[in-house]
């Protein structure tokens, strides 16, 4: 793991991606800081951090698009996977390198609350650092998912666009709740759409036409049968499922002064899920 971590850090430092990501983050955070704190004279760093979530649209694709896409394109994954290193070490080595690069501007952000002390920021020091912590946790979750996206394809552009779309989806999905009716029947429709999506996924993974059709039919019929038995169970379920991908609401809560451990745990578990999915994805490719 050490060798891979070292190599990744070196490659971020020498290639464009590391400096660009760090520079963009510092630029956006610096601008927000000047706007909310210095111009308005607010002592709370929360607004600055809250509005800095823009950076993920750039940082996630720039940092993660190459992680596994490039290895596969250059066939260097053959070197990694035939070396006496476990797959977990390879993925974690890369993930920790990503987090390390991301942590550089976060460390710079940690200076900001100190600057605000003359404005009366001393009392809000705790919330300021907690908001930075949530921000960092959210970044870790994004990087983990971005890494997974990059393990799906060997095309850099698709990998980058996938990363941007993922960030976009997780930022706006809370708006989609209102679009999906909470009624029982609408939820049934939602479940059937999910079944179709699952079927498409099965087809992409296995290229087996009948298997995907079977999955769609079985899932759709099961949903329909469940709907016949207890229609009330479906009420509001679509919203619950969508909220799995709702990064924004978990991030937003601290801005209203309600820092919560579950929100932090949410990001930690998303990070773990991303790493596990990446490992599973690479393992799966060995078998196909």
């Amino acid at each position, binding site marked *: 793991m050490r060798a891979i971590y070292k190599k990744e850090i070196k490659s971020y430092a020498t290639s464009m991606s590391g400096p660009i990501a760090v520079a963009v983050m510092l630029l956006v955070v610096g601008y927000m800081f000047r706007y909310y704190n210095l111009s308005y004279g607010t002592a709370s760093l929360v607004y600055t951090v809250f509005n800095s979530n823009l950076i993920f649209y750039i940082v996630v694709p720039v940092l993660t698009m190459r992680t596994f896409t490039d290895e596969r394109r*250059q066939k260097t994954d053959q070197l990694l996977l035939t070396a006496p290193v476990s797959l977990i070490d390879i993925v974690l080595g890369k993930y920790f390198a990503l987090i390390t690069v991301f942590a550089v501007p976060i460390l710079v952000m940690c200076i900001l609350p100190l600057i605000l002390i003359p404005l009366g920021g001393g009392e809000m020091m705790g919330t300021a650092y907690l908001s930075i912590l949530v921000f960092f946790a959210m970044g870790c979750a994004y990087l983990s998912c971005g890494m997974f996206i990059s393990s799906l394809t060997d095309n850099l552009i698709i990998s980058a666009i996938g990363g941007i779309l993922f960030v976009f989806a997780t930022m706006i999905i809370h708006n989609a709740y209102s679009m999906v009716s909470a009624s029982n029947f609408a939820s049934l429709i939602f479940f059937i759409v999910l079944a179709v999506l699952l079927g498409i996924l099965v087809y992409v993974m296995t290229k087996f036409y009948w298997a995907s059709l079977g999955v769609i039919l079985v899932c759709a019929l099961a949903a329909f049968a469940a709907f016949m038995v207890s229609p009330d169970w479906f009420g509001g379920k679509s919203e619950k499922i969508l909220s799995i991908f709702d990064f924004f609401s978990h991030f937003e809560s601290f801005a209203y002064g309600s820092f919560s451990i579950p929100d932090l745990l949410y990001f930690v578990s998303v990070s773990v899920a991303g790493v596990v999915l990446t490992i599973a994805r690479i393992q799966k490719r060995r078998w196909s």
Partner: protein
Amino acid sequence: MIEVRNLTKKYGDHIAVDHLSFKVDEGQVYGFLGPNGAGKSTTMNIMTGYLAATEGDVIINGYNILEEPEKAKRTIGYLPEIPPLYPDMTVREYLTFAAELKKVPRKEVKLAVVHAMQELSIMDVADRLIRHLSKGYKQRVGFAQAIIGDPETLILDEPTVGLDPKQIIEIRELIKSLGRRHTVILSSHILAEVSEICDTVLIMSRGRLVALDSPENLARKSAGATVTITSPATADEMRPVLEGLEHVTGVDFTDDGEGTVTAHVTFDGEGDPRKDIITALTAGGCSYYSVDVQRASLEDIFLELTDSEDEEYDDTDDEMTEDAESQDRLNSVKTQAGMVSDEKEPESSESDSVADTEQSETQEEADSGEEAE
């Protein structure tokens, strides 16, 4: 030692490797030979743990690649078909990374890198970015990566591709010298290369093993020989004499138009058939000017073995007898290739032990002293 048992790899309906079994002994150079798409690279990728097999086992130096991958991989150096290089690194950085990845002790990393660079004579490009190197240099950097850390077994997928003739000779010499200390498995479709550097050849076709033997034995045993006789006697005089000989599979005459006839006699047996021919011709009252023998080259055998896709095949090697199922399959090609006379009982290991000095591609001249009258 490497043992491959019943290895199968399927991509959907396509079978890339089909119940492949063989054993590789220490301190020898093995060559995988086969047309493109025969499953050579897939087999190597499975042996090194890059791909998982659909079925079967690979035991590398006592460790199963699936059950104890890290221990098994520690004993292998692998050069894939496309050398796995990071274009943004310098040669030294790259080899240092490879050494660390292979868990070379930290104090020895520097030495191991320099040693590998010296072996491949790439010291002069040590601090250049890999992206600026020529194909031959890239190939050698990839090779250096494989030998770093001194692994017991080297697996090289087409190691001489992209090199110029001088470099090819250097790499072949290097492989030969490495073969004394390590087990080397390489793949190639250059037949001369395989017959020159390999102690044993494994010929693959459509994912199956069609032959496993030393290059000399393969050449000697499989395709037989063709004897060309120039004689002032007529075809009608010679035909009964030649057709009466043992192991003759065909006689063909051409009239040279200058009072001589040339006869082409094909044999399927081992050994030199000229003595029998000369004795028979003399006894039959036919005179002759010359008797030449031409042996089948490795190329002929290769084509013969790999073309016979529909027919079933067979192998002489006794190692294969362990696997009854593949043995049955192997039996037929051998017969078809003229390697084995008895279908059920494969030839014993004599094929490996017989010292054979005969050069496969040499055309031997008839002894002038025996020229008649």
